[in-house]
């Protein structure tokens, strides 16, 4: 097999960057709730797909895809708050949160299949058609939007945690919730807020999924391995971690696909993860 042309290589690097941004966006909420609330929310993927289907539905009814965020984000925020309330009510351990959210995943998947059937769905929108030409390379608008949103949200959360009073209180909760509570931090309220935000981020990721991908209920699990790899590589609770790690994974996958065969791409994130876990065990 000869080396692929430079243009092809450039195009695949670019697509790696963009898909990496989506990994990062999907991983953001996951990383925050795992790192700061010790809840491993498998249902995050199902939520993102639910968001995608909602966007699809609303856009089908004539709404602008971006405007659907006004509906999806508050709704998902409420869902996240509700879910955290349930988990906190039964003081579910990190491990059991994984099992409970596994259950939620199955329910949401069934709901999606019941409403939208198992058929493939593709959102038609004006955004999908727009492409920019940069030199010999093409950039599609939905991908650019995804990158922009991933960057914006990650940086916003980073700034919030770093520079505001509530953000610092949130970091104190992540460090040690009972001690933070003893010093007057509103653990309950802030945890509900963070959980709501995580779910809202899933809604935003859902919009990006709907813009670029064909939807099917079974696809929920396709993202799971890679995104969890990005979350763990990026460091739990680190708001910039998933995006950086996601882009590293996306680009490595794209290179692997370009240089070998597409079949080996899924191995990339897994091997990266194992290598990092072996080399830097303290990270998780």
């Amino acid at each position: 097999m000869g080396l692929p042309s430079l243009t092809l290589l450039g195009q695949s690097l670019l697509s790696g960057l963009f898909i990496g941004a989506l990994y990062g966006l999907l991983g953001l909420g996951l990383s925050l709730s795992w790192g700061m609330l010790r809840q491993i929310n498998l249902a995050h993927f199902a939520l993102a797909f639910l968001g995608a289907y909602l966007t699809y539905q609303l856009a089908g009814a004539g709404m602008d895809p971006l405007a659907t965020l006004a509906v999806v984000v508050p709704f998902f925020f409420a869902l996240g708050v509700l879910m955290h309330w349930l988990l906190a009510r039964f003081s579910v351990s990190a491990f059991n949160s994984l099992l409970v959210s596994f259950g939620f995943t199955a329910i949401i998947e069934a709901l999606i299949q019941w409403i939208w059937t198992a058929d493939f769905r593709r959102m038609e929108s004006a955004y999908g058609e727009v492409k920019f030409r940069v030199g010999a390379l093409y950039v599609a608008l939905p991908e650019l939007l995804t990158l922009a949103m991933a960057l914006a949200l990650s940086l916003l959360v980073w700034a919030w945690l770093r520079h505001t009073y509530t953000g610092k209180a949130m970091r104190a909760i992540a460090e040690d919730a009972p001690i933070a509570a003893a010093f007057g931090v509103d653990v309950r309220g802030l945890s509900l807020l963070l959980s709501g935000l995580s779910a809202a981020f899933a809604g935003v990721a859902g919009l990006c999924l709907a813009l670029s991908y064909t939807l099917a209920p079974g696809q929920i699990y396709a993202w799971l391995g890679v995104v969890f790899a990005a979350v763990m590589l990026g460091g739990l609770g680190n708001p910039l971690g998933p995006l950086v790690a996601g882009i590293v994974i996306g680009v490595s996958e794209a290179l692997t696909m370009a240089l070998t065969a597409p079949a080996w791409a899924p191995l990339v994130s897994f091997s990266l993860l194992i290598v990092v876990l072996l080399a830097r065990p303290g990270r998780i």
Partner: protein
Amino acid sequence: MRARALAGFAAAGLGLSAVPFFGPPAFYESFLYLVFHWIVLAVSWNILSGYSGYFSFGHGAFFGAGMYTTATLATKAGVPFLWTLPLAALVAAVFGIALGAVVFRLPRLRGELFALLTLAVTFVLATIVLNTPIDGGPGLYLSAVPLPAIGPSPSSTFYLLGLALALATLWIAREVQRSRLGTGLFAIHDDEDVAEVLGVPTYRYKLAAFGLSCGLAGVAGGIQAMFISYVTVGETFSIAVPLNVVLMSVLGGSRHWFGPAVGAAAVTALLYAFTAGDYAVAGHAAVGLILIVVILFLPEGIFGELIGALKRRRVPAMPPIDAAGLPAPAAWPGKPEGQALLEARGLCKAFRGVQALAGVDLEVRRGEILGLVGPNGSGKSTLINVVSGHFRPDSGRILFEGRDLARLEAHRIARTGIARTYQIPRPFAHLSVLENVALPAMFGRDAQARADAEREARRWLAFTGLAAKAMSLPGELNLHQRKFLELARALASRPGLLLLDEVFSGLTHAEIDDAIRLIREIRARGATIVFVEHVIRAVMELTDRIVVLSYGRVIAEGDPRAVMREPDVVAAYLGKPRA
């Protein structure tokens, strides 16, 4: 016990295998086959995940590996169907062991991480199968593969195959639970570090359980491939297998070999009811809902709760036993007292720049009680952790009986005859007090059989005054009793060297007197004792010699009274007087 169980299994096998010869509708046989199929998957999953607590979300991958092995061999290589089954088991088991050999080496691999890694592996494998000639996309048809006529009809053949495999799986799960492997796995579930320090080869045990678990799933996959006769990646590597299997085990109760079978029968019947009524999707949702409800309200599972209730009602009466029959622990014949038993040379250990041990030289003499004292953070507990193998030293040597322990795994160190206690007691929370103490006797230097180990454990419980609590769970003990449980557990391995980490802290005056008496008696039986202590009264009363540590170095050693007056020692505790 085993003979009766074997008879029970044989009777169940004979009775159930007669069913097809009464000519029931094929439809019932197929339904029962599915029940057996899920019993195999759930019970095999439980061997690693239920017993040891490492929940695998990747059972679908091993099931799928078996499915594709049978499908590939039967269609492309013309191997007769039944011959593909052992190969399906082999491929799945090798795949599982290879994966385990990597992930179980990860330091600080927690349950959550294992669950996610195994889940990810499922999709990695699915993508590879899909994009390589193993499948390539269209799926594999097995309709042309001849099915051996074991029963009167094809559906009864599957019924009989499923039945045989289900009984075999249940038998294996039962034997594992009652074997040393099972005991070790249950200890890993509660506290893996402590299990390792008490002599359980945790890494090998997890690998063995994983291999068994995957191999059985592989056979189930092989039979299922033939049953559905059309194998696709999408159906095989779906989330349904891990989701259902986790639910079945959690629902039935994952701490008993039979629990998952109860859950499997219940969930299969439920799913079948939904599918028959054309509500397959609703069935999927119901499985999710039940999983949530069970985790929140029934953490022990249906069968687990039942067993728990039965156990509470029937506490077996045990004949009284006293400490009289205790063996003389660890007499090392032919070696005089006073010689070095353990020597540390230049031990160093740093944690991210904190030099906890900075070149410790130390000698423990045969038959003595050595006190290890020093201010907080001086490295006493680290020293115990390094000697017992919990941490590896960065450099230096630890010679025990002339053998270097510095590079040995903790369970091997335990087998050389070193035992320790923890400052904050770390009993196995789900094992009874008796089982807690019997475990080190099974995995210690003498590797006793279970019955002998339990007999000896009861003697040690009598010795430490815990005989009445033998059947309690450690959670029901108070601090004083938990400290003595630590002691009994360390003694049960018949150690030559006993490392005691602050046994006296938190005890009342009278309880300390009790403990001092016990430690004197232990020494009188021939053990050598190192103890870390802050209670100076106990140090002065018990020790022959003391060693003082400060900032990871030995700053003084010798006669307790003389050493405690040395200016360096006083300064280490109280600071230097101002000139």
